[in-house]
């Protein structure tokens, strides 16, 4: 682990329980790390969320995505763009980047690289659907 990775880990581990995936999307997911979801889901909650909003796998833990969705709406001081990115389709994880500094990969653009066969979303993200609760 390089120096930058070590600094990143020291800062992000205690605050977000960072798993050092090397391709951080924290800002798009309500400042909640999706890699702390036991299924490491990066595109929203699975269908197994319990009636109390807790995790299917770890019943004692609040669902990471229930938390993320709430925070993406309510967290103060967050740029509007970050809130809007919440529903973007995030590409598959590049497992080669695990342990790398996501800061370094963000600056170089390496974390934006996707497999050649990964096609972008055909249409604009679906941010406009409102449900009457």
């Amino acid at each position, binding site marked *: 682990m390089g120096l930058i990775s070590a600094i990143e880990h020291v800062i992000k581990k205690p605050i977000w329980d960072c798993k050092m995936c090397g391709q951080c999307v924290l800002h798009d997911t309500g400042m909640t790390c999706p890699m702390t979801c*036991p*299924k*490491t*889901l*990066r*595109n*929203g*909650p*699975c*269908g*197994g*969320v*319990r*009636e109390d*909003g807790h995790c*299917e*796998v770890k019943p004692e833990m609040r*669902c990471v*995505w*229930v938390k993320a*969705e*709430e925070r993406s709406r309510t967290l103060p001081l967050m740029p509007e763009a970050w809130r809007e990115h919440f*529903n973007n*389709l*995030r*590409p*598959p*994880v590049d*497992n080669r980047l695990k342990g790398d500094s996501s800061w370094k990969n963000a600056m170089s653009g390496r974390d934006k690289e996707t*497999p*050649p*066969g*990964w*096609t972008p*979303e*055909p*249409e*604009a*993200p*679906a*941010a*406009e*659907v*409102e*449900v*009457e*609760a």
Partner: protein
Amino acid sequence: MSRLGELLDRGDELIITGEAPVIDGGTLADYEAKLQELAPWCDAMNATDNTAAHAHASNVAMAIAMQRVGVEPILQVVCRDKNRIAQQADIMGAALHGVENICCLTGDDVTAGDESEARRVFDLDGPQLIRLANSLKEGRYLSGRSVGTPPPLVIGAVENAGTHPLDYRAQRAAKKILAGARFLQLQICYHPDRLEGFVKALHENGFAEKCAILPSVVAVKGAGPLKFMHNSVPGIDVPADVISRVADAETPAEEAYQLVLEQCQHALSLPGVRGLHLTDFRKDGSMARLCNDLGIKPRTEREQHAHDRIVAV
């Protein structure tokens, strides 16, 4: 093209899918017999992928078996047991046998099954798997390598309208539709208000036109399975009054039938709902009774009717 694909293209006819029973040991004849309760009513049936994290005959094997006995399969693919390479291989392998319908799921966790000590994979998640299937349909693997002749896949997904975060579920469904899902089989839901809110949001925003919404129902024989789902299936909440309605009835089996009939009627009454996804745990001829009570004709009759209509036009 698959029958399901044709129905989706035509855009207005009822669609009935069913959850095919799993099989462990046995023969093709045994499997064919198991399918008979539900198959006559369904346009296509799910070849499930190790449901609830229990090992069974594989999804691809069951899908091919269904084809051989004249039932149109929907290959269910989950993310729990295999990485992206194996998932692509399964979809292409099934397509080689003519299996075109694919249903993409994240899948239950390994802890839901009887081998909780197994390694969970989740290399991809449900929405990513939908895009992956679309890449294959467009003619390339995720690596960009050509698949040769692209398989004419009919891609679908699932969503749980009945669990948290409730206000977000329709958005998640929309995300899957934008990723390429053309049909959406919903998780069983015992909260009619939640189903209604979910379907309404998709319908009013034009997503129900792009994607066939198919709420799921399960026919059970008594209160036991309802309690089991409530206590042991994460994401399914069965309200206490629903359980007691069946448990305290004079004939719980009949009350359970009336419950599922009402659920079907309610779901089909919602604008934006295109059909149903049926699961049968009763195995006593109730599927025929249910479809009859709902006015749903067997698949062959519906096919004939559609054919006559097209010829008439």
